[in-house]
């Protein structure tokens, strides 16, 4: 983490003294499982994300990535440690953050368009305006003609994209994205990645991005952090991505530096995944 603090920001350049957008300090998260000892999902670990920084989290399945995001969102109260948002300790929900959940989280009783529009309406936007902006966003995620569908009438990837539009339309200062492009094909993934990067470049959001696609993580991020296999998962690697901005998410994969980074991170990650399986590995 210290590394990250010392490096100048990759995008814009906020004052060195400015508090980080997200600061997780020594947070530990446990789950109570009735009739069993407490399950310590995340051991005390720390992660800071500066304003305007794009940080990806990778790690073996079930290590605690979603849990970390939930803690940042204020949906889970950590058993220990502190969560601070722009320097202020987090109490209750994180109002600055937009969160794209790993699971389906659309309201099944609203159409795609309404699902996006409601995100604006609750902030006080007039309905007509909200609908117009929502339609705009649906177009951006390639669903212009699906606005009047209910979630159950959409494919998995379509639902995810509606969710993406729902989060982005509000323009939150902190973005928490849990495998946002998981159910998308490679090509759509790149289009969405570019969309996200453009948006991020515009107003220096802080992004915490969970993905299983290491290439994607490198292509998009300023830093890639690796979590160890759970239980008691910790952040065990923190790789600054010193590739030039702005990036073309497709072309950048041809850069030799990209491949070097990939190999470095992959080696550490691979070792970690194997641990999950231990002798279980087939």
């Amino acid at each position, binding site marked *: 983490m210290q590394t990250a603090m010392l490096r100048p920001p990759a995008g814009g350049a906020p004052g060195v003294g400015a508090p980080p957008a997200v600061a997780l300090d020594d947070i530990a998260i446990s789950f109570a499982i009735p009739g069993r000892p407490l399950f310590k999902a995340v051991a005390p670990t720390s992660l800071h994300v500066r304003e305007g920084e794009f940080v990806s989290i990778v790690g073996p399945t079930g290590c605690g990535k979603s849990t970390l995001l939930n803690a940042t*969102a204020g*949906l889970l109260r950590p058993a220990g440690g502190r969560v601070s948002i722009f320097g202020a300790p987090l109490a209750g*929900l*994180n*109002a600055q*953050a*937009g*969160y794209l*959940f790993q*699971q*389906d*989280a*659309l*309201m*099944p*009783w*609203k*159409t795609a368009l309404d699902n996006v529009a*409601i*995100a604006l309406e*609750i*902030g006080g936007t007039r309905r007509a305006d909200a609908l117009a902006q929502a339609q705009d966003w649906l177009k951006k995620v390639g669903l212009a003609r699906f606005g009047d569908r*209910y979630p*159950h009438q959409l494919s998995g990837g379509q639902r995810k994209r509606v969710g993406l539009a*729902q989060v982005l339309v*509000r323009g939150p200062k902190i973005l928490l994205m849990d495998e946002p492009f998981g159910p998308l094909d490679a090509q759509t993934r790149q289009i969405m990645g570019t969309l996200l990067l453009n948006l991020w470049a515009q107003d220096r959001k802080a992004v915490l991005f969970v993905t299983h696609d290491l290439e994607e993580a490198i292509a998009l991020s300023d830093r890639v952090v690796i979590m160890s296999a759970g239980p008691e998962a910790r952040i065990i690697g923190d790789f600054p991505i010193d590739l030039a901005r702005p990036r073309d998410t497709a072309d950048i994969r041809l850069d030799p530096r990209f491949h070097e980074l990939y190999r470095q991170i992959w080696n550490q990650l691979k070792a970690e995944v194997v641990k999950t399986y231990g002798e279980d590995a087939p």
Partner: protein
Amino acid sequence: MKIHPGRLLLLQILVAVVAIGFWQFGATVPVGGTYLLPEFFFSTPLDVMKRVVQLFVSGTIWKHLWITLTETVLAFVIGSAAGVAIGFWFARKPILAAVFDPYVKMVNALPRVVLAPIFMLWLGLGIWSKVALGVSLVFFIVFFNVYQGVKEVSPVVLANARMMGMSEHQLFRNVYWPSALSWMFSSLHTSVGFALVGAVVGEYLGASAGLGYLIHQAEGVFDVTGVFAGMFILAAFVLIIDWGVTRIENRLLVWRPQPAGEQA
């Protein structure tokens, strides 16, 4: 698995015909020396039909019907509204709910028939004491279902809505309410009937008009035909109200997938 509406109606009529046939048979043909459905207790379908027609033709029924309708609708609307409101409120205030939980259950268990004098004392003999009786039945059915319905809201959808920054009021409108709707409608189908039962029992216990009064009067002079005619009108009545509820339900629940298992 879909069935043509015409065929459905045919089958429904068939059921009615069989039931009425059985009734007529039981009331008029002795089996082993006794009647299955002695006329003294069951009248006969023909007589009941004649009486129903006569009640409508002579026009005496309208006044009673109107009063009972008013009471039923009021009991239904007030009871459901209160059930929904308090159900939501309790669901959102777990401590409040925990504190009042035993009392709600106690009150639910009090026999309404016994409470009738108190309702009359407070509300007089007019329609309001009957409405109160109906409300006291409807309320609990709706209340428990709404309460449960709110607690069954999908945690992910709720978390998402809260992350969007919805206020309690907005959560209610956009999440709790739509999510609890199917629970609510399930309870409304039961409570339509109970609203009517409440009104009729209220009239039965003390009134000067209404279907319950008619039935009670018929009972007092052992006019079973009158009793059954009254009940028949009652039942026809509730179907109409329920039809209204179902229409609203279908409009409000357009968003749901076809009922499971319908497709294959």
